[in-house]
């Protein structure tokens, strides 16, 4: 899909409102964590796996709670409370908001995708998008068999975040390898096909009422810009092209990371954020016979 002729290739309107907001969010969160070690101001301690904000608010990544349980360890109450808060947050906002707005790896893979587009690299290794779910399952099975958080030895997501805050060691090599693979190996290989963290958060995304909506889809002129920039272009097709089939305009596929890139690049302003539970075709702004 991304190989489709893109009129702008995602390069022309590389920076948009949502892109800026997202980077501010990602870098801001990282900045809060770095404020302590670099500036001596301790707002948040720990890292994304588990943290303590202002010495009172505990947050724990639910995936780590799951890993502890799989490894046969009963976590303390603090971890349960922290994981419950995070869980509710992502159930409300949509799981993969983590990928688009929090995860530091996203900046790496977005940059790789940008470079790949600039260098006009096409094709590469074919990886099924579902593979990430298998990686997630396999990772949990391995945790159960080994009784240790084995995945943590190689997890680039926590390695990058923890590395920036606590020291990287040779972790750069793993991050670099993923960057290079995303550029030369396969389009959006890591975040879009392999990452079990993203897969896990995707599973949390079903119930969220926050969506990007192809509200003015009738105005779409098939320039394909949104498909070119979207890290998960398969999620756009049904709502954007589904008017005839009575599909609603909400992009409600759990793989959507709500990054808002489609909103940024669309020259016809087809997309906007929308809070809604039901996805009715009638909700499209131009749900009129002229389509």
């Amino acid at each position, binding site marked *: 899909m991304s190989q489709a002729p893109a009129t702008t290739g995602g390069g022309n309107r590389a920076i948009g409102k949502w892109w800026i907001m997202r980077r501010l969010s990602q870098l801001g969160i990282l900045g809060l964590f770095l404020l302590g070690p670099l500036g001596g101001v301790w707002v948040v301690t720990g890292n994304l796996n588990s943290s303590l904000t202002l010495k009172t608010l505990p947050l724990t990544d639910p995936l780590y709670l799951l890993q*502890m349980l799989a490894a046969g*360890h009963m976590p303390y109450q603090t971890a349960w409370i922290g994981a419950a808060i995070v869980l509710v947050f992502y159930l409300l906002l949509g799981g993969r908001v983590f990928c688009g707005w929090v995860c530091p790896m996203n900046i790496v893979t977005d940059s790789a995708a940008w470079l790949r587009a600039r260098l006009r690299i096409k094709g590469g290794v074919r990886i099924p998008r579902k593979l990430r779910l298998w990686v997630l399952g396999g990772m949990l099975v391995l945790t159960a068999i080994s009784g240790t958080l*084995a995945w943590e030895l190689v997890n680039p997501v926590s390695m990058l975040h923890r590395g920036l805050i606590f020291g990287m060691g040779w972790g750069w090599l793993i991050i670099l390898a993923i960057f290079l693979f995303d550029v030369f190996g396969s389009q959006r290989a890591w975040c879009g096909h392999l990452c079990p963290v993203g897969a896990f958060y995707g599973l949390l995304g079903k119930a969220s009422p926050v969506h990007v909506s192809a509200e003015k889809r009738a105005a779409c002129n098939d320039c394909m810009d949104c498909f070119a920039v979207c890290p998960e272009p398969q999620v756009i097709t049904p709502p954007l092209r589904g008017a005839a089939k009575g599909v609603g305009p909400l992009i409600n596929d759990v793989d959507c990371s709500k990054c808002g890139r489609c909103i940024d690049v669309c020259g016809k302003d087809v997309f906007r954020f929308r809070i809604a539970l039901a996805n009715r075709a009638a909700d499209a702004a131009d749900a009129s016979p002229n389509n």
Partner: protein
Amino acid sequence: MTDKTLKPLTSPARREFLLDAGKTACGLSLAGLCLGLYSHQTQALPPGAIRPPGALPEADFLGACIRCGLCVRDCPYQILKLATPGEHVATGTPYFVARNLPCEMCEDIPCVKACPSGALDHSLTDINKAQMGLAVLIDHETCLNFLGLRCDVCYRVCPLIDKAITLEQQHNTRTDKHAVFIPTVHSDACTGCGKCEKGCVLETPAIKVLPRPLAKAEAGKHYRLGWEEKKKAGQSLIEEQGIVDLPDRMPDATPDAAPGGLPPAKQGNQL
């Protein structure tokens, strides 16, 4: 979805699907196997790395610690560090190296309190009961006290002086007129804080803190120390059990000596 039942096994689409699934399964299991082996390898903590106080036994610790570094942050002396890839400690887990910075044995044990997962056991409330490792005076040839000098530094710096480490006086066989004072660590009291290792005046310390499973020997479960059993019981345990005392062989022993040996009254008078 196309109807799969109508497709012969050799149809290109079917073949491709099976091939893809097979490749995926192979790739995943291979990656899993590598990771499994790697994780197995990192399960043995290198001797120089000491876990924070209250850490669960290593195998449990690796299944409990979520590599968050909250313990690292709450250590007021900044002795802890999270392992990075390339080190021989599991990536992201906290440890310290005693020779660089030993544990200061904070009374309120902030590192343990900070741990959200339970990898550091909150039931440890008295830092003197911590068992981070066990100090061992490894090099008897180079330790100054063993040579007969009075260095004593490891002994002096121990927060549990005279409990965790004592000086045991022995005869100096080299000079034949002095004493040597052997620094002796007692495993029931040593917390493994590493102050002694840090303090040792030698270029490379003669005393080192090691992970307890490495440092501590274990006698056979059935071993009994006679003198301790006697103390426990308040009396000898074998006297009244009708132990058969074989006759002492004397040059002039008569072949018709009673099998029970000489009567107790006579025993002391022999020879």
